[in-house]
Structure formats: C-alpha cells, structure tokens
C-alpha cells in the first residue's frame, strides 16, 4: 500500500495559494515596464490616445464641427490650445475626435486582417503540400501590390466609408500575417507534443487551435502592435488624398490635406498638429511593438 508522502511527513507542508490572475498580470506588467522603459513610454502614449478615442466628448473642450467657436486661423491660446482653423473650429477638439477614426480604422482593420491571416497561415503551414503552395502563391501575388496603391483601387471600387476602409486595409494586412503565422506554424508542428496530441487522438481542429495557436501567439501579438501603426498611416494617406472617410467626420489626414495645406503659409500650426498626432501615436505603437518582441521572443532577447 502506498502512502502519500506529504500526508505522512511530520512537518506540515504549506503550498502557497497562487495569487489571483489580475495580480499576476499586474506583476508581469511592472517587471516588463522596468525592462523596457521606451516600450512603457509608448504604451502610455497609446493609452492616452485610446482614452481620447473612447470618450472624446469628455476630453475635447468644444464641438469639433462647430464653426466659429473662436476667431479664424488663431494661434494657440488658453482657450484654444492648438488654435483654430479657417472657419473658426477648435483644432484641439478636432484632433481628439480624429483619434476616434484612426483608432477605429487602425484596430478594426488589424483585427479583421490578422484574424483572417492567422487562420489562413495556420491551415497553410499545418496542411502543407499543394494547398500550402497555392496559398503561398496567392499571398505572393497580393504582396506584389504596394499597400497604398491596392487600398486606393479598392476604395475607388467600393466607395468611401468606414467599413470599406477597414476592409481595404485589412486585405493589405492579410498576406503579411499569413506569412508570419505560417512560418511559426511550420516550426511548431514538428514538435513532439504535437505528435503526442495526435497519438492521443486529437482532431486536426483541436491540434490547430488548442496546441499550435497558443504557441504561435507571440509573433501574432507583435504583428498586431506594429500593423495598427501601419494601418493608421495608410488611413491618413488615403484621407490626405481625399479618398478617406468623407467630411464632416474629422480625420487627421483630411485635416492636413484640406486646412493644413491650404493655410500652411498663414497658419503653419494647422499643418503641424495633425501630423504630430499621427506620428506620435504610430511611434507609440512601434515602441510597444519593439518592446513586446523583446519580451515575448526569447531568441531575440539578447540583442
């Protein structure tokens, strides 16, 4: 008869209770922020923009579309931190409301693009053979188009609007995401734990989503953070070219192209603030992406 060694030992063994999940996440974040000071700065910037985008009404001092809340083409002052535009709208309020659109399109398109890309990449890498070859040729063909050009044509065909923009930019993200996830899947699928799962009778579906997906999640998280920045830049470029979401919705690219370019010599700040907003949020996202790559990818940690 076997005896439970713990129960039999004279000294009571105390197994410390695992701290709740939220405490563990908080501890991890604290450690991460100490290791990655630049990434932390980036995260703070991104957080501020997310807040502005979620509750613009609370942050913005004025109605962004209300004409004549100040004088025309005013410089910055206490009542209008970033000045006013050519018809007296408050620039700061317009920037805050513009964040909403950038965040919506940036995160929306990346969510759609990486989900589809991940699914295709998983299947392509796991299945191999003819399916893989065909999918990769298709991805090659998609990657041949420079991103902005493809988005331009798609928006021309589909018309201008938030859903169309999200879909057009998502299509640009799919091939890159597919590539990366396929590569990671290829590396993962020959591991012994996959064989073990298969021997135990796990279905392909279970192997893909319960075993491989969690193990390729690190590169996926990194692409998401970097791609949101790319998506925001493409949205800004499309709006700048007059093919973004039509006015009166305020978007940074559109502010640059209409107000910024027309009045840049009379009121240069009109051409500076929206670009600064775009650059800051994209820089923040890139810093977060770099930090995440260092934290999540042990192979690169030494660099």
């Amino acid at each position, binding site marked *: 008869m076997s005896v439970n060694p713990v129960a039999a030992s004279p000294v009571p063994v105390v197994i410390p209770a695992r701290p709740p999940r939220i405490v563990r996440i908080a501890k991890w974040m604290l450690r991460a922020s100490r290791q990655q000071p630049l990434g932390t700065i980036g995260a703070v910037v991104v957080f501020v923009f997310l807040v502005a985008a979620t509750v613009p009404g609370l942050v913005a001092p004025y109605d962004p579309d209300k004409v004549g809340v100040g004088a025309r083409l005013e410089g910055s002052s206490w009542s209008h931190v970033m000045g006013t535009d050519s018809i007296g709208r408050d620039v700061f309020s317009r920037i805050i409301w513009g964040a909403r659109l950038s965040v919506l399109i940036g995160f929306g398109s990346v969510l759609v693009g990486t989900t589809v890309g991940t699914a295709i990449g998983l299947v392509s890498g796991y299945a191999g053979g003819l399916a893989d070859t065909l999918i*990769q*040729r*298709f991805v*090659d*063909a998609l990657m*041949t*188009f*420079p*991103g*902005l*050009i493809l988005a*331009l*044509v*798609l928006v*021309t*065909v589909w018309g201008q609007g938030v859903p169309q923009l999200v879909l057009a930019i998502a299509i640009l993200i799919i091939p890159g995401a597919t590539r990366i996830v396929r590569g990671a899947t290829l590396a993962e699928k020959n591991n012994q734990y996959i064989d073990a799962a298969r021997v135990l009778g796990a279905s392909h579906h279970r192997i893909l989503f319960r075993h491989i997906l969690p193990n390729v999640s690190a590169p996926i998280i990194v692409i998401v953070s970097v791609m949101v*920045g790319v998506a925001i*830049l493409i949205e*800004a*470029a499309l709006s*700048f*070219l*007059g*093919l973004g979401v039509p006015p009166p919705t305020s978007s940074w*690219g559109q502010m*640059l192209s209409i107000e*910024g*370019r027309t009045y*840049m*010599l009379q009121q*240069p700040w009109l*051409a*500076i603030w*929206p*670009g600064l907003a*775009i*650059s*800051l949020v*994209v*820089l923040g996202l*890139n*810093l977060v992406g*770099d930090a995440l790559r260092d934290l999540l990818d042990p192979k690169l940690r030494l*660099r």
Partner: protein
Amino acid sequence: MQQYIAQRILWSIPTLFLISIAIFGMVRVIPGDAITAQFTSQGNISADDIAKARKSLGIDEPIVSQYIDWISGAARGDFGDSLVTRSSVTDRIWDTLPISLEIAVIGIVISVVISLPIGILSAVKANSMTDYVGRLFALTGLAVPSFWLGILLLVLPSVWFGYLPPLRYIPFTENPLTNLRQFILPSFAVGFVSAATLMRMTRSSMLEVIRADHVRTARAKGLQERVVVLRHALKLAMIPVITILGAQIANLVTGTVVIEQVFGLPGTGRLLIQAINQRDYPLIQAMVMMIAVTVLAVNLLVDISYAWLDPRIRYGGGR
C-alpha cells in the same frame, strides 16, 4: 544557379496571371460599368450614346474575350485609350514616368546615404548613447508620414527664411539646377521614411555578422577596427540589406504617389490620383498593372541577386 533562376521566372508567370485577373476583375465588379459610371457623373446622355461608347470600348462583348483583348494588348504595351482625354494610356504614363523616377532615384540615394552610416555606427556601438539615438531616429522615421514631412519641408523654410522651392515643374533639360532644387525636398521626404527601415536592417544584420568567426579572426590578426568593420563585416552584412532595398522600391512607388500631390509635381502618382478621381478605368488598370509588374520584376531580381551573393541559398530549391 541557372535552374534556380529559371524556376523563379516560371513561378512568376502564374503570379502575374493572378494579378492581371484581379486587376481586370476589380474594375468589372463595380455596379454598372465604366461608361455608366462616367456618364452619370456628367449629366444625362441618351441611351444611344451610351451604347455607342460601350461598343467603342468593347465592353459590350463577353467578359472572357474582353480580358483576352486587354491582356494581349497589355503584353504589346498597348493599354487602350483614356476615357477622359481619348489619348493613348501608354503615352500618358510614359510622359509622367521620368518625374516619378527622378524622385525615386534621388530618394534611394538619400536613403542609403543616411541609413548605412547610422546603421553601422549603431551596431558597432551597440547599447551606447549613439545606438539609442540611432534607433530612436529610425523609429521616428517609421512613424512620420512622408506627406507630413513633405509639408513641413515646405512650411518651415518658408516661415523661417521666406524660402519656397519653385512650384511649377521645370524639366531637367530646361534648367538642371532649378530642377534639382525642386526635387531635393520631395526626394528627401520619401528617402527619409525608407532610410528608417534600411537603418534597422543594417543594424541588426551588422550585429549578427560582427560576432562571426571570420570577424574575430580579422581582429585577432591585429587589423585596425575600421578595416575589420568596413572590409570584413560590412560585406557580409550587406546581403539582407540589399533585399530590403529591393523591397523599398515598392514603398517608394507608394511614397511618390502622395509626395507628388504635396509638391505639385505632375508625375505618375499624380496621374494615378487624377485617373481615380475621374474614374478613368483603362488608365487605372494600366497603371496598377505596370506597378505590379515593376514590383514583381524587382522582387525577382532581388531573389536572384540574393542567391548569387549568398551561395547557401542556391541549392534551396524554388522557395
């Protein structure tokens, strides 16, 4: 090696075919057709006129024969006539091409001149203050939209010094100096953005090579650090950088589209935006196809040069 090249070229044919179908299909997906879209924006025109215009464009024929017509013309460099100006699409593209090429070429030069020294310095002095400044510079370059940089390059000198570059396009043959003055700013805006990517690649590639055995041997021989870095490490580190440089061509194409709008230069990018605004479908199709073919050709050249530079890849097969 020859087998590898042949394989790569063969593989690009189905890709090209897929692309051409996609481009051809995209325009056909629009509800109604090109003519209806055009005429409705112009006001009312009799059904008779529409039918006539449709026939002249050949879009009353079945879709497969339309595609064959288009693709066989395209293969001969004839993309049909513009819907708006009725002139040859190919001619219009040829007229604007030199302007975009000039921006792109000067842009590449600027980008290489900025990125290589910073990338090398960043890697050689890894984790120093120099490295941090270099990396921050690269991250900034990735975050700044080129069109905003372009606007700043126009605004700031004019505010500070009252300087504005000539805004009407002057061909190089007319006045080389004015022409260069006009192109340096847009090229810088485009080049700066791709410099960021190049710098990051140079840095990480250098970091990998600088720890390699042959570099240690060179140091052990007592060679000067400068010689070790420039002669022994750099040569090997350049291989992935060349690949990225190839990929940057695609980015430059995108960059010129936007930057030509900012500086009012009548290049290919501006023609594309104009074509899109006027719904000039033959022109849009032709330009997108040409861009795709160019990028495909550059990728092919990069892959081949890569295999040529790095013998390890040569036997890797088609992928």
